[in-house]
């Protein structure tokens, strides 16, 4: 406490010194002062130690949320827990939707276009959520569950799409509960790490649309509605490549 009054260098300046906020002239003065005033030097190291503890103490807060892997195993968790992570994920996906692509769909009165818009929204949300999660999914054990979930959405004859002819391996995925009903996200990755996701969701009214391509901020989506099914393929690859992937993937569910 004595130091507070006695020191020609105020506590504000010591604090600013710790934060690297002094110009070189004052910094030199403070450093000279510290070298022969033990109390002031002790205070500076106490500040630094305290800052360090604070960083450690608050570090976990940054990691609570979507940064947890959105892995299949977590589907077993409480629904509420998942809902809150999804809300966060939805925020991440708004990135693409609020500004860029939004205008055409919410204005439309036609049910098919509206469902198409929802489908794209769901698919891009899932895609971005997956990308912003850190999780690599241990797939081998879950492949059968994904296949089962896909059959529930896309019909008994559906199998997991094999995209290896185009260089993409199935690396993960997750069953989802969307407002329109159950859905499945399948995640594919090629050798250079490019991620493409295939999304299968219910199509409430029996609307049909041909393939449509949406481009928004470097992410492309190819989607279509047919029968009871909504299908969307999302990725940051060219729309040509995405279309090839979509067509190949579609064969796996059309039997």
């Amino acid at each position: 406490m004595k130091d507070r009054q006695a020191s020609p260098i105020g506590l504000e300046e010591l604090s600013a010194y710790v934060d690297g906020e002094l110009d070189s002239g004052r910094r030199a003065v403070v450093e000279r002062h510290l070298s022969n005033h033990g109390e002031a030097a002790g205070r500076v190291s106490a500040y630094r130690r305290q800052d360090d503890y604070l960083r450690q103490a608050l570090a976990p807060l940054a990691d609570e949320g979507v940064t947890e892997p959105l892995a299949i195993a977590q589907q077993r968790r409480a629904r509420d827990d998942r809902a809150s992570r999804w809300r966060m994920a939805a925020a991440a996906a708004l990135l693409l939707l609020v500004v860029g692509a939004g205008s055409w769909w919410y204005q439309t009165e036609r049910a098919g276009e509206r469902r198409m818009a929802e489908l794209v929204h769901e698919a891009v949300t899932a895609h971005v959520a997956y990308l912003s999660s850190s999780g690599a999914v241990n797939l081998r054990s879950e492949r059968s569950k994904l296949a089962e979930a896909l059959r529930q959405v896309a019909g008994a004859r559906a199998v997991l799409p094999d995209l290896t002819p185009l260089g993409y391996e199935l690396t993960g995925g997750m069953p989802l509960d969307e407002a329109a009903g159950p859905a499945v996200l399948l995640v594919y990755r090629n050798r250079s790490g490019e991620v493409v996701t295939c999304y299968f969701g219910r199509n409430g009214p029996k609307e049909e649309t041909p393939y449509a391509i949406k481009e928004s901020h470097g992410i492309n989506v190819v989607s279509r509605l047919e029968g009871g099914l909504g299908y969307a393929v999302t990725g940051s690859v060219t729309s040509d490549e995405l279309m090839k992937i979509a067509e190949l993937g579609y064969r796996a569910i059309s039997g």
Partner: protein
Amino acid sequence: MTSFEERLIAELPALRRYGRVLCREREAAEDLLQDCVERALRRRHLWRRPGNFRAWLFRIMHNIHANDVRWRARRPRSVALEEGHTGAAAPVQELRAEVGQTLAAFEQLGDDQRQLLVLIAVEGFSYREAARILALPEGTVMSRMARARERLLDIRDGQARDRVRRIK
């Protein structure tokens, strides 16, 4: 070039943490984070490269929170204080003792001091950036930061004295 979205996603963890410090409570903090992301997106055309993207985002979050607080202050309080004040304290027991004590002391600080400590000591913002985020003069940031550090040390001194007393 990294897209606006990717940069935004990269900042989500830090924004989430700042939201927790602002709200002290997880659910409210996630809502705040979402509001912040939405507003950032709606205003993306207002952000100009090579502006300071992080400071811009933190300022958005801070302003939303400040407005929420003002709005809530005009309404009767509907949540019991004990309920609302769960603190940012996450898994205290898993932290090293000094770290846990620092967190406990941090929780006792006023909002102004906690915000400043997080922005500067944890997020590494400069005084000038923090001043912009908080809409304060730089000089105020400097003096308030020094007071916050001292207050934190004082609280921890108090904790230490309490422990000594218990041991005796």
